[in-house]
């Protein structure tokens, strides 16, 4: 299951020149600063840019090559646009039905009631788009795209036009999408936090070209890429909820390298979650620290030291079990501890953020 792309499209000011192969499963994040060609690439995949040259192949089916250009309405691709894109002359129900009615009944993967329930739209069905808030509109747009039973769902910064409250309201829905939709998603964003929360695979775009493609966990911690330099850079881990401790209001989750304490989370034991550890919340100690207030201390190995945008800081890429962990410490500490690749030490993790539920990788 792959989406193979080899595209070329000249645009005013820059040229989109992309060749890569994406896994057609899970959520693929498309990350880059504004103007890097994220939206243009997404539109090419959807078939909305007839001027693009090159090849697109989805699961072995050619959508575009030298001879053919499958038009957008025959690609069965769902698209959620950046700003509200509801049909203003139709109410919410008719908007939802627009896509549904154009799918042969045998091919429908979702019925109206289920979509309404999943995205919590029951009270909005008779409303006109103009009466909805920004967050409500995007929820309707997502449900409408899903109801067209797409084989691939493209989301173009669906949160960027929303206020923080609406964003927080939609994010859990997006995470649940992975469980509900069981189709690949491509999620465009220029907000690292959203990508860390949602993406499994990452494509890094720079000036119309692919700078890097790979699993999110790897790309986040690579010192040769700009992601590690972000002030809110960090690492993500897939984890399983193992134990709740109501006395101290803590939950314990298991990652490959050990056990982490997080703030108490109302979630069943055994549930898969994603945790995020910010690079600035990781400190390093050569000996196992005694008498410390920090709960999470795990053995780690230094893999790489790299300069940071801030000349007083150093980025340290560690290995926690088999997974990469990024730490940002002062350059002075790095020198004093004599850090070198291969060194074994202890990572003290001051804070672990547990993100909303995510599907187990095996569910894909």
């Amino acid at each position, binding site marked *: 299951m792959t989406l193979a792309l080899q595209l070329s499209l000249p645009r005013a000011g820059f040229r989109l020149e992309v060749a890569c192969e994406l896994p057609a499963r899970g959520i693929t994040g498309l990350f880059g600063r504004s103007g890097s060609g994220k939206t243009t690439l997404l539109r090419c995949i*959807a*078939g*909305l840019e007839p001027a693009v040259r090159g090849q697109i192949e989805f699961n072995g089916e050619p959508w575009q090559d030298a001879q053919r250009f499958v*038009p*957008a*309405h*025959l690609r*069965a*691709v*769902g*698209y959620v*646009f950046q700003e509200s*894109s509801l*049909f*203003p*002359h139709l109410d919410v129900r008719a908007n939802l039905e*627009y*896509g549904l009615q*154009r*799918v042969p009944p045998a091919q429908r993967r979702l019925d109206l009631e289920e979509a309404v329930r999943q995205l919590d739209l029951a009270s909005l069905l008779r409303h*006109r*788009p*103009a*009466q909805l808030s920004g967050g409500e509109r995007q929820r309707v747009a997502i449900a*409408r*795209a899903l109801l*067209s039973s*797409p084989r691939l769902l493209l989301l173009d910064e669906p949160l960027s036009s929303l206020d923080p409250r609406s964003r927080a309201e939609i994010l859990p829905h997006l995470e649940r999408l992975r469980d509900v939709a069981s189709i690949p998603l491509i999620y465009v964003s220029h907000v690292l936090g959203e990508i860390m929360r949602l993406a499994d695979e990452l494509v890094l775009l720079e000036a119309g070209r692919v700078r890097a493609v790979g699993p999110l966990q790897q790309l986040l911690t690579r010192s040769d890429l700009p992601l590690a330099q972000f002030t809110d850079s960090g690492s993500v881990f897939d984890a399983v909820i193992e134990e709740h401790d109501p006395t101290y209001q803590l939950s314990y989750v298991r990652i490959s390298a050990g056990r982490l304490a997080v703030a108490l989370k109302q979630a069943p034991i055994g549930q898969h979650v994603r945790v995020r550890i910010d690079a600035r919340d990781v400190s390093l100690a050569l000996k196992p620290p005694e008498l410390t207030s920090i709960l999470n201390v795990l053995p780690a190995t230094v893999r790489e030291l790299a300069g940071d945008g801030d000349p007083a800081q150093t980025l340290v890429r560690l290995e926690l079990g088999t997974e990469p962990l990024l730490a940002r410490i002062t350059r002075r500490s790095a020198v004093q501890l004599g850090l070198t690749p291969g060194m074994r030490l202890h990572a003290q993790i001051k804070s672990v953020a547990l993100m909303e539920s995510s599907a187990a990788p095996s569910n894909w």
Partner: protein
Amino acid sequence: MDSADLIALWISFRLAATTTLLLLLLGTPLAWWLAIGSSRWRTAIDALVSLPLVLPPTVLGFYLLILLGPQGALGAPLRWLGVSVPVFSFTGLVIGSMLYSLPFAVQPLRDAFLSVGTRALEVAATLRASPWDRFFTIALPLAARGALTAAVLSFAHTLGEFGVVLMIGGNIPGRTRTASIALFDHAEALEYAAAYRLSLVLLGVCFVLLLLVYGVNRRLRAVGSTA
């Protein structure tokens, strides 16, 4: 009002209705092409469509008379084919009126299609709607206000036309004499009472039509029905 005037009014309304209907049918695809097309001829066609706005109606009528007349470039082949020549007939009136009112139908439609924009149509495409499907379910409903404006303006404009109708129709009572020509005849003959009555009817109809357009437009705006 005497029966001759009633017949003239009837001819005017029949002409306006026929012209409006045909203009909507033929003007909509033309307006669509002007709005979304990328042909290099587009600007030239746009200007051509707008020509009747500035052209003296008698000029248009004169050309049509020459073109469609028994010896004309179009009239002669028509006669050869056995079709009756359309000058001095209701058909001729319709052809002349359609050309004369063309910009009043096409421009509001074109602007309405332009304001629908490409986004809604792209969304529809990703929801599996074919180009025809998108046109009828998205572009046309969203351009409804433009279509209404086009219809009313074409109707009212045809009702009021004089020069083209006189040129190509020839003022034949009961066949091509429209209300506006009858009005002119009355005024010429100093029959002011009859002229007043006809004027009042035409004024009233035009005002009610425009009232309808503005009323409907306001209501559509209120429910947020435009993109």
